[in-house]
């Protein structure tokens, strides 16, 4: 049984990490990061079967790819707090000579990162490639991917989505951060995604939803359900409804904090709403 008290503490701590990282360099993407905090904590602490340490090939373990690389603050925080690198390194986010690039990169050798992402729409393809290799290697472990909903406007995704079903790649779970927001406004106002559930289904995927994507228990239950649907001849898609900026009241329900850092006063308010738990870096 998961230690829910610890996981909830970790979620709050990760929110603090996100706010402090972007505040320090006055840049970065807090909104989507906050919205996916519960997902990342659940995935790395409970859902994925991970080996100790890090090697690029990831043979004999589950592998995760972040397609919407701009939510690097939550990725870096959870990676460091899951043992991939020292949490103190979060201090170097977006600074020169850092391994914590604005968008995730393998170039600097940061453990936990297997491909660069940031230019959108490429993560599902890469994840499917890794899934094909797992099958060739007779490795029963799974591939997990997170992509943004606005990101699905990139055409490459649909090439990949078509390929996955056509080739019965059933060792992958693609989660969509379904927050309905993107840089210029709501997805509905920028370029409507339409019936996303129906679209994935029409492409031949097994689709399910997590209605409360900022509820830890809902994510744990939902991702376990998603896992149980793998290995049945279809790729699995999870539409995870989240609230951008979750956990910091003035950042919620708006696209305004997609790519904007809080000032000193806003940071203080955000941190007060998320009091220190495990310990700041």
């Amino acid at each position, binding site marked *: 049984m998961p230690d829910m008290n610890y996981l909830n503490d970790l979620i709050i701590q990760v929110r603090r990490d996100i706010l402090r990282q972007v505040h320090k360099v006055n840049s970065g993407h807090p909104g989507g990061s906050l919205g996916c905090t519960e997902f990342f904590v659940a995935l790395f602490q409970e859902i994925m079967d991970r080996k100790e340490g890090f090697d690029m090939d990831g043979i004999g373990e589950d592998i995760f790819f972040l397609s919407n690389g701009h939510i690097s603050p939550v990725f870096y925080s959870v990676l460091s707090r899951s043992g991939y690198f020292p949490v103190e390194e979060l201090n170097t986010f977006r600074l020169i000579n850092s391994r914590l690039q604005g968008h995730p990169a393998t170039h600097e050798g940061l453990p936990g990162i297997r491909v660069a992402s940031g230019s959108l729409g490429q993560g599902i393809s890469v994840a499917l*490639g890794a899934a094909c290799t797992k099958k060739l290697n007779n490795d029963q472990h799974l591939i997990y991917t997170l992509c943004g909903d606005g990101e699905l406007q990139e055409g490459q995704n649909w090439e990949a989505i078509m390929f996955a079903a056509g080739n019965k790649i059933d060792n992958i779970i693609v989660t969509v951060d379904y927050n309905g927001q993107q840089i210029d406004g709501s997805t509905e106002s920028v370029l409507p995604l339409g019936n996303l559930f129906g679209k994935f289904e029409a492409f031949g995927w097994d689709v399910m939803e997590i209605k409360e994507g900022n509820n830890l228990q809902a994510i744990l239950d939902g991702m376990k359900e998603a896992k149980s649907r793998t290995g049945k001849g279809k790729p699995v898609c999870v539409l995870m409804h989240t609230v951008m900026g979750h956990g910091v009241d003035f950042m919620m329900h708006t696209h305004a904090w997609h790519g904007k850092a809080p000032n000193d006063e806003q940071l203080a308010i955000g941190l007060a709403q998320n009091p220190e738990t495990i310990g700041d870096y």
Partner: protein
Amino acid sequence: MKKYVDTGKKDTRSGFGAGLTELGKINPNVVALCADLTGSLKMDEFKSNHPERFFQVGVAEANMIGLAAGMTIGGKIPFTGTFANFSTGRVYDQIRQSVAYSHKNVKICASHAGITLGEDGATHQILEDIGLMKMLPGMTVINTCDFNQTKAATLAIAEHKGPVYLRFGRPKVPNFTPEDQSFKIGKAVHLQDGEDVTLIATGHLVWEALEAAEALSEKGISAEVINIHTIKPLDEKAILDSVRKTGCVVTAEEHNYYGGLGESVARTLSTHAPHPQEFVATMDTFGESGTPAQLMEKYGLNAEAIINATLKVIDRK
């Protein structure tokens, strides 16, 4: 002077196909991906020998590059196959982020490069691909000249760790390099000695350079001929040693003047040993429909063009 013999015309793409077939037998980690051009890329034999290691991705090149990047995670060595146009310009950002910046061991194998693709016309005749690929940090760029060299290069790049762009073509051209050659990435091939001019050629222009050298010798001009198959990393020493001896150079390639081999040679010379250079290349233009021979003539990419450039460059010494 060593005389090179055409052992029979063959297409370079078939050299790639033969190399891939052999790799399938000797290297279980090699996988192949193709975007609906299996026959054109001569990948059929690999496909039928190893269906589990062959991935038909459909007309979806961006996904193919991403898949290939992902397949390296877990130890596979992916070879992607499509036309040069769709291997580079169409998927530049996918190559840049998922392959080059991410240091993935992907081999991007591109057929129908250049103007000799012929009748399909300019939409398919990419003349900018060498430039696009050589600008990517860490990318190895190879353009082979005949069947045997293409087969040898295909085998060699599987042993090289890191991203590679391998460029070859459609037409049947003389096959004149040794069948048993050892292909060394980044190492120039010295084809013949000469005193008056250095001809540096890549791809389909290498045979033309040999023909030009023979015609020039009848005019009393002694041409040294160097085949640069690896445009990046460039064998600068071989180029400088030769040009310091002959005093001038003609570069020849089936590619735009901007961004091609000639530009890399010019950079090398201007940095270390400035000498007169003339360029045999397309001059900032798109191609058009026609037979390969007609197009090579119209766009100044044959032995005659190399001879004219040589006479010009020698005058500038």
